[in-house]
């Protein structure tokens, strides 16, 4: 079973706020959230799911080469994203669509990546949301190095949470087996770097269940490296927020790295090229639908008196954004042909110059017809 005795949870599947000694400090963090912030949690989860579905449809209609759905993982992502502070840097894997949105990245930029228009998509300096990385776990080392740089810059442990920085790196249960993930834990711990490793355990690496990656709970990986580690209910947006806030603040204060394993479930396919019916049973999917992060949080908000009007409004907003996304996707054009030679190097490079010129002349030799 994915949940263990160690699993931290604040919100039960029926939307009840839980109390226990073990979670009291997290409960205190959540009690400090105002209504608008809680509404934002909901808005981001619902909106991302709506856009996610729209993107999947666009792929099915031939508008995208591929789509990577994040359905079911919204709470782990949205909660942790709000748990960071705005000056923290986030290193995603490639499924963190809601975090991209929270950090101000246009969803269309993700579409551009999966439509084959770009291999990047946005300027990470503005959003502090780094680019998606497709080779599993490689970004964990980039994040560890970046966090080492935070330390070298003296932006850690000054006691000012608005100046001290941390970074959060997202990876998954499959990626946890990669050598880079383990080397990143070594480097982070060795240099006491201000980084939080956020492992979304969605139970499958495409088709292979997590038990093939690890016979013991994955949060123990962090502990094995001497890193304070937590296992949380990843479908509980409140615990994801609170534990991430605690972990990033600990990291920025100079206490070294932290490790969070969020137990969640990919309700959809790995990608649009995948067929989960070949490796998952319906009973398991039904079980996780009962644990759905959005319906759980909706029950919680309703128990606090949130009315239908709010939920209707969020739904309408999502539909409008999805419609806008569709319109803008269909209007996207391929990049100019010679763009493939641009920005391969920062400084001038004779091979790029020569081949760009050659291609332009070759294309022009057809008399301007494309």
């Amino acid at each position, binding site marked *: 079973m994915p949940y263990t005795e160690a699993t931290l949870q604040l919100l039960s599947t029926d939307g009840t706020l839980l109390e226990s000694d073990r979670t009291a400090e997290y409960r205190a963090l959540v009690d400090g959230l105002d209504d608008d912030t809680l509404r934002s949690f909901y808005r981001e989860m619902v909106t991302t799911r709506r856009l996610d579905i729209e993107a999947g449809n666009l792929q099915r209609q031939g508008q995208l080469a591929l789509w990577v759905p994040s359905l079911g993982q919204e709470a782990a992502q949205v909660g942790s994203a709000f748990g960071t502070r705005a000056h923290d840097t986030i290193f995603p894997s490639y499924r963190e669509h809601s975090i991209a949105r929270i950090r101000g990245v246009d969803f269309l930029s993700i579409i551009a990546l999966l439509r084959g228009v*770009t*291999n*990047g998509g946005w*300027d*990470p*300096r503005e959003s502090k949301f*780094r*680019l998606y*990385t497709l*080779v599993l776990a*490689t970004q*964990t*080392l*980039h*994040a*560890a*190095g*970046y*966090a*080492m*740089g*935070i330390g*070298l*810059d003296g932006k850690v442990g000054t006691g000012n949470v608005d100046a001290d920085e941390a970074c959060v790196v997202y990876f998954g249960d499959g990626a946890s087996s990669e*050598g*880079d993930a383990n*080397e*990143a834990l*070594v*480097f982070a711990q*060795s240099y006491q770097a201000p980084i939080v490793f956020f492992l979304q355990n969605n139970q499958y690496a495409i088709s292979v269940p997590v038990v093939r990656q690890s016979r013991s709970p994955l949060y123990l990986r962090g502990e094995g490296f001497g890193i304070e580690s937590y296992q949380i209910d990843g479908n509980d947006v409140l615990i994801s927020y609170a534990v991430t806030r605690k972990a990033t603040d600990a990291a920025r204060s100079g206490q070294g790295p932290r490790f969070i394993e969020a137990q969640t479930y990919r309700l959809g396919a790995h990608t649009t090229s995948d067929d989960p019916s070949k490796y998952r049973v319906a009973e398991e999917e039904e079980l996780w639908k009962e644990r759905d992060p959005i319906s759980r949080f909706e029950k919680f908000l309703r128990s606090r008196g949130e009315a239908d009007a709010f939920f209707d409004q969020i739904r309408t907003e999502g539909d409008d954004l999805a419609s806008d996304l569709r319109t803008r996707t269909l209007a996207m054009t391929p990049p100019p042909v010679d763009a493939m030679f*641009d*920005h*391969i*190097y*920062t*400084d001038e*490079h*004779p*091979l790029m110059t020569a081949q760009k010129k050659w291609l332009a002349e070759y294309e022009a030799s057809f008399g301007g017809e494309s």
Partner: protein
Amino acid sequence: MTENLSLAKAINLGLQKAMRDDPRVILMGEDIGTLGGVFRVTEGLKNEFGENRVLDTPLAESGIVGSAIGLAMRGYRPVCEIQFDGFVYPAFDQIVSQLAKQTTRHQGTQAFPVVIRIPYGGHIGAIEHHQESPEAYFVHTSGLRVVSPATPSDGFHMIQQAISSNDPVVFFEPKARYWPKSDVDTGATPGPMHQSRVVRTGSDVTVVGHGAMVAMLLDAAEVAAGEGISLEVIDLRSLSPIDYDPILASVQKTGRLVVAQEAPGQASVGSEVAATVAERAFYSLEAPVIRVSAFDVPFPPANLEGYYLPSVDRILDAVDRSRGF
């Protein structure tokens, strides 16, 4: 100011100067701090700059390069040392799929000025994985620059140029040339890093090489001169991009080209030079371009390296074959 330096010491001084000039330059690698590196190239630098700028890293090559990429994202200019040529492969993905592609992925919004120093090549009688010439793997990868100094003077200047480059540079240091000394003008203004250079003029056959091969080509030229054969020797210096103009100009003069390298010949730097000269100077050639390479086998036990690696005799044999056409 002219100093008589070994290549190892020249690179050491070049690193020191770069670090003095720019506080964002940091060194990373295994045993490079307190020990000064297994070849002592970083000797004394930790004392001068401290452990925050000369990092004795955990023993993990992918970790070194991967974290260097993160440090570059943070604005640093990391210089990584890979301890030996045959130890670079654990970092291969981070170099080829990450470092080399970051600039284009970022569409020019950020530069990735990371230098990867790799002591390489044979002639030192070492055990397996300690004598290889893996440069072709990196030359094949767009997004990287690849250079190899053959002399102390180039070592001093080119390491600084590599660090100043805003692109990733793989910097191959020929181990066999670490210790011989020659004069270095540390006050000179160097030519461009990516320029090949005629290091001995001649008229009969052009011979091209890089790294430790350059000294061997000069030895071969000396022997050939005694037999009345004039070799023009060109030091490639830069393997990506390759500066062809001096090579083409030389071939137009001699009509003959021999390319020597320590790496196996298949899909090698020498193959690239041969193909390009054939494309661009076909009518100047009086003979096929001949490669002198290591054999296409794994680096053999060191007792056999003298048979595996090119030698003065094998270079001269190739010169004779070229002249036989």
